[in-house]
């Protein structure tokens, strides 16, 4: 019922979208001839890594770039298209102009609007020469004939013209405009973070339509998963304004820093994309991230009142830690170098929302696979071996040991996460 009302309201708004002038041809909109085609393809290959096109356009165990990857979102399931140059099932018939329309304007070859599950609201920042290089690279791949099944988008969102409305209201195409008051390195970092890096695709709050609602890089829950991508502008969460540039660059390219570890979807971003950045690009991103305005000053989380009950609960948590966690994370939560993350002083542990920490303990996981660390160490899943109350206690303990401070975790929170409810 709610969906129908929503559909009606959106349909009424449809006019706005349709009345918008078609995408104009600004100064960026013309393809420039290139002198060295091989160098252009190499450049494109690098940019494809920075944009992680392969991560979304490759099925598990499937042919690279042939699509078929399943993407769960709040409006339904997307199955990504084949972007190899196969003429029938891929983008073999596309021109550089068609590709530009997709990456910059979010429009398919037949003119239909594309869903923002393809992060073109970020990719629109990419310059025309970079887009052309990406296209030249994709066209140089071996064509793979693979027709992917259509996605299963729920009513009313499966009605593509509705996207015109969304676009009219929320999407502004435009390449990155350098900030003249900043140096070249900062601008390079901003270009990569806001554009190809599409960090904001995950690190912001979205409503069920997938529309970004929160502050840019202000943190948000990943659609259809119980992962929370922390705010990159708050020192309470994932902000880095007090970090050394080297540590930020290290986190991006290896997934490990002295008091942080990339886990889950962020580990995938590191291994599929960020590890391949040139050192100077990783550094530029670090410089930009470090400069992001701080939205909340650093303060330690609220400590639970130390009553007799709380004290008993934390002691029980400590016993579980000694039995199951200490061998890897250490007696003082210090972790082990290049293998096990420190839990002391780790914001991933003390985030106001404990969902990521609950997830880590329930389901475990391996750190990112990179060229430097092809065999990362792993965290065992405890869902089968510890009860909800036990997991809640050990988490409450690590959130309040070794100088950490955070709210207590309840068995009900663990239970919700176990069942996949967010």
């Amino acid at each position, binding site marked *: 019922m709610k969906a129908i009302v929503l559909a009606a309201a959106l349909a009424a708004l449809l006019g706005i979208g349709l009345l918008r002038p078609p995408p104009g041809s600004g100064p960026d909109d013309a393809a420039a001839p290139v002198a060295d085609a091989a160098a252009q393809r190499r450049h494109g290959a690098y940019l494809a890594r920075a944009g992680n096109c392969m991560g979304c356009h490759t099925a598990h*165990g499937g042919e690279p770039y042939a699509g078929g990857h399943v993407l769960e979102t709040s409006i339904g399931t997307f199955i990504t298209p084949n972007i190899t140059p196969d003429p029938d099932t891929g983008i073999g018939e596309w021109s550089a102009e068609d590709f530009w329309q997709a990456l910059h304007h979010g429009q398919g070859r037949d003119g239909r609007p594309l869903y923002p599950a393809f992060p073109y609201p970020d990719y629109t920042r990419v310059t025309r020469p970079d887009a052309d290089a990406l296209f030249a690279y994709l066209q140089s791949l071996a064509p793979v004939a693979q027709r992917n099944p259509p996605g299963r988008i729920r009513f009313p969102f499966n009605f593509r013209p509705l996207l015109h409305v969304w676009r009219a209201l929320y999407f502004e195409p435009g390449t990155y405009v350098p900030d003249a008051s900043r140096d070249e390195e900062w601008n390079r970092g901003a270009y990569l973070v806001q554009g190809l890096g599409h960090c904001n695709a995950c690190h912001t709050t979205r409503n069920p339509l997938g529309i970004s609602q929160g502050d840019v890089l202000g943190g948000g829950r990943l659609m259809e998963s119980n992962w929370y991508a922390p705010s990159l502008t708050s020192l309470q969460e994932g902000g880095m304004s007090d970090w050394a540039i080297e540590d930020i660059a290290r986190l991006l390219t290896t997934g490990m820093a002295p008091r942080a570890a990339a886990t889950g979807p962020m580990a995938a971003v590191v291994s599929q994309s960020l590890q391949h950045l040139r050192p100077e690009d990783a550094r530029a991103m670090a410089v930009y991230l470090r400069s992001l305005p701080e939205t909340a000053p650093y303060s330690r989380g609220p400590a639970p009142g130390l009553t007799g009950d709380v004290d008993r609960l934390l002691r029980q948590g400590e016993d579980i830690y000694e039995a199951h966690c200490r061998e890897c994370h250490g007696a003082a939560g210090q972790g*082990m170098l290049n293998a096990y993350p420190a839990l002391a002083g780790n914001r991933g542990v003390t985030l106001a929302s404990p969902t990521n920490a609950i997830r880590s303990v329930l389901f475990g996981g*391996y750190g990112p*696979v990179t060229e430097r660390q092809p065999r*990362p160490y792993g965290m065992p899943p405890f869902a089968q*071996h510890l009860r909800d109350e036990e997991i809640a206690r050990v988490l409450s303990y690590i959130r309040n040991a070794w100088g950490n401070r955070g709210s207590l975790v309840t068995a009900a929170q663990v239970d919700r996460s176990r069942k996949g409810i967010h």
Partner: protein
Amino acid sequence: MTQWLRSIALWLLAPVAVAAASADVQPAGAPDTMAERVKACIVCHTTADKAGRDAYYPRIAGKPEGYLFNQLRNFRDGRRHYRPMKLLLENLPDAYLREMARHFSALELAFPPPEPLAIPPEEADLARTLILRGDPARDIPACTACHGADLMGTAPFIPGLLGLPRVYLLAQFGNWRNGGLMRGQAHDCMSEIAGRLAPRETDALAAWLAARPGTTARPADAAAALPAELARRCGSIVLQSAGPQ
């Protein structure tokens, strides 16, 4: 005298040192071994007798590398379903999965004590006949023809059948028979054979196999052990295991 001075100095410095240590203990390195890296697996796949709620976990130590590698890829890529392992393996590349397979394949671990044989003698006879002779009338070869005379498997892709819990064996037969759900979307020799077995037969086989003590024999070598006809029947698996290394 210097001894005495030093102990005074130590005593004076001690409180500072302790405070520094508790605030920031320097992490040491972890052993650079596969055993350390698969700690995430052995919470479930241990040697210890884990009766009770853990009775379902299959033994993987000593099974042929190719078989283990195939299964790891199957879990990761959604061809065999078990969510905890899928989540764990999600982002790991083939090369690493193969190293894990190699590690467990080379592992020599004591077997858990066999489960008691809780079936009547005629059911046990039925199981023994199928295992040693099969049923030519239904085109079911002897299990030993593929799984090795001592049922310890045939390298590189046929697993040993001993040391597995009865409930695990039952579940595998059930999946093959019903197709789709966990295993057996892929059509192969084993799903074909399992499809021809009656529930009474798979019940007997599972009980009988789980009651056999394990042996320390290594998997037989396929080239020497497997008749060409049977190797051909399992062709889809042989091909799959010849994938990228």
